[in-house]
């Protein structure tokens, strides 16, 4: 496998690893990619790892004896081990591959939820959740008559920890919340929220879709029961996500999807489930994608998640500072010290869609809309926002281009 170049400590050179970042957009302007919270770009080494699997070892896994099947199985299970290590899991049995973070959360709602939640039981979410951590529970609430309680979001864009205490007094069965908001950028005090939830007797699920790409996340340190994330937001491919689950909990859960690989034995009218983690992986998995995610984890580890974090903080701070100077621009959420690399804002008199469109003309790729967090937008009484999000390959210069282009938007439409 072609390795990614070893990280030199200089983030300016990192951009070279990402083929997409060197293109121009339709207007002819150079691309400035500020939409990594939607999906990150992929380094060459991740694409090569998948290509190598397809071109050399492509085979179905687990059941095969021939050379290709053994190579493919080894590559797949080896990726699982590295991913388990990356998140601090005790064992690779605790790493279940899904399509994305969304499916991981749904798996918990269907399997753990339907086994453990009954009418009147309380599930705690927050007002800043992505739809992925709302809708599965709404479906379950409707079906099982469970109650949803929401940790409110303060005007500053933080979770209201006092209200949380009151909700915990209701003895909820589950507390499921986002580690980092994909709109406000807020990094929630996950360790504290989890330890308080545990003290109240609740099981915990952490939506790490935004946090894991950006800073060190260790399930052992956080003491999380379940954790969900997506490969495509952390330099990995589409089509693969992860559910981490504490082994004892996963063991007690009924299977979710049925089919090949998740079974030990099948009779016409019954089956015996396979051991962990296979019990939750039905049918042919996303083999190439898991191998790609393994390479992504190696790539990020090569940089060092502490370095990734520091670079993210630095650039976010700079962005907040220069955006703050625009009087007609209003940032949602807390100060730079409490957030990751996401900045969502509104412009006086200009709709976010128009902002995004005109920015695209200048090559700046941002997202406009509700970012799959409609209730949060409702909380702040805005139908939509424009969101710039930063990752390892972004620089001060990218922020400067953004600001220049925003001025133009204001002049044109404001």
């Amino acid at each position, binding site marked *: 496998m072609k390795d990614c170049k070893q990280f030199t400590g200089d983030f300016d050179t990192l951009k070279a690893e990402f083929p997409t970042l060197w293109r121009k957009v339709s207007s002819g302007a150079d691309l400035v990619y500020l939409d990594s919270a939607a999906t990150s770009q992929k380094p060459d080494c991740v694409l090569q790892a998948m290509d190598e699997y397809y071109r050399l070892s492509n085979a179905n896994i687990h059941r095969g004896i021939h050379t290709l099947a053994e190579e493919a199985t080894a590559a797949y299970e080896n990726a699982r081990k590295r991913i388990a290590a990356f998140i601090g899991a005790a064992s690779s049995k605790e790493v279940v591959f899904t399509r994305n973070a969304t499916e991981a959360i749904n798996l918990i709602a269907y399997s753990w939820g339907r086994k453990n939640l009954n009418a009147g039981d309380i599930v705690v979410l927050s007002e800043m959740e992505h739809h992925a951590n709302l809708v599965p529970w709404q479906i379950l609430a409707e079906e099982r008559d469970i109650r949803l309680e929401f940790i409110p979001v303060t005007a500053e864009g933080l979770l209201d920890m006092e209200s949380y205490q009151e909700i915990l007094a209701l003895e909820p069965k589950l507390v499921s919340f986002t580690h980092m908001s994909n709109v406000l950028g807020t990094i929630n005090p996950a360790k504290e929220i989890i330890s308080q939830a545990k003290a109240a007797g609740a099981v915990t699920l952490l939506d790490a879709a935004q946090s894991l790409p950006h800073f060190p996340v260790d399930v052992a340190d956080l003491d999380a029961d379940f954790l969900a994330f997506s490969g495509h937001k952390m330099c990995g491919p589409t089509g693969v996500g992860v559910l981490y689950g504490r082994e004892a909990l996963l063991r007690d859960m009924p299977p979710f999807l049925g089919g090949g690989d998740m079974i030990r034995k099948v009779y016409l009218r019954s089956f015996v489930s396979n051991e962990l983690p296979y019990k939750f992986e039905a049918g042919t998995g996303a083999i190439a994608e898991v191998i790609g995610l393994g390479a992504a984890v190696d790539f990020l580890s090569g940089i060092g998640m502490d370095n990734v974090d520091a670079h993210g903080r630095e650039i976010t701070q700079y962005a907040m500072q220069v955006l703050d100077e625009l009087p007609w621009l209003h940032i949602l959420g807390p100060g730079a010290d409490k957030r990751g690399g996401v900045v969502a804002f509104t412009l006086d008199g200009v709709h976010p*869609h128009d902002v995004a469109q005109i920015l*695209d003309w200048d090559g700046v790729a941002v997202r406009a809309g509700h970012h799959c967090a409609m209730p949060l937008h409702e909380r702040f009484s805005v139908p939509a926002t424009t969101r710039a999000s930063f990752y390892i390959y972004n620089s001060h210069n990218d922020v400067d281009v953004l600001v220049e282009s925003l001025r133009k938007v204001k002049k044109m*439409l404001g």
Partner: protein
Amino acid sequence: MDDLYRELIIERNRSPHFRGELEPNDYTFQDENPLCGDNIRIDVRTDDAGFITEAAFSGHGCAISQASSDLLIESVIGKSVEDVKKMTKEDVLDLLGIELGPVRLKCALLPLKVIKAGLYGMGEATDTL
């Protein structure tokens, strides 16, 4: 971009001619573009022969959907309800005089979707224009 935000669109977004609500009305409908939350309501008054005499739009949205609403209403006043039911995507794009990618197309077409749903008396607007 110069194409997309031509003077007419910027102008109609800034100072629409047909903004408002009509109460009472003969037809009214409201719908949202779920992608972005653009929300348009269109109220229509007709005469006994089924011709549109007055119309107005309200709600919020991007410059494209606002200008499209305003221009669409301008074009339907004086037309028969049956003729408006037959209006197509191309008619709206002709009014705007621009080309659009798939996402922004939804913005431009939202008012047509809304007015047709209103005239057909549908429970929900559909994407099949």
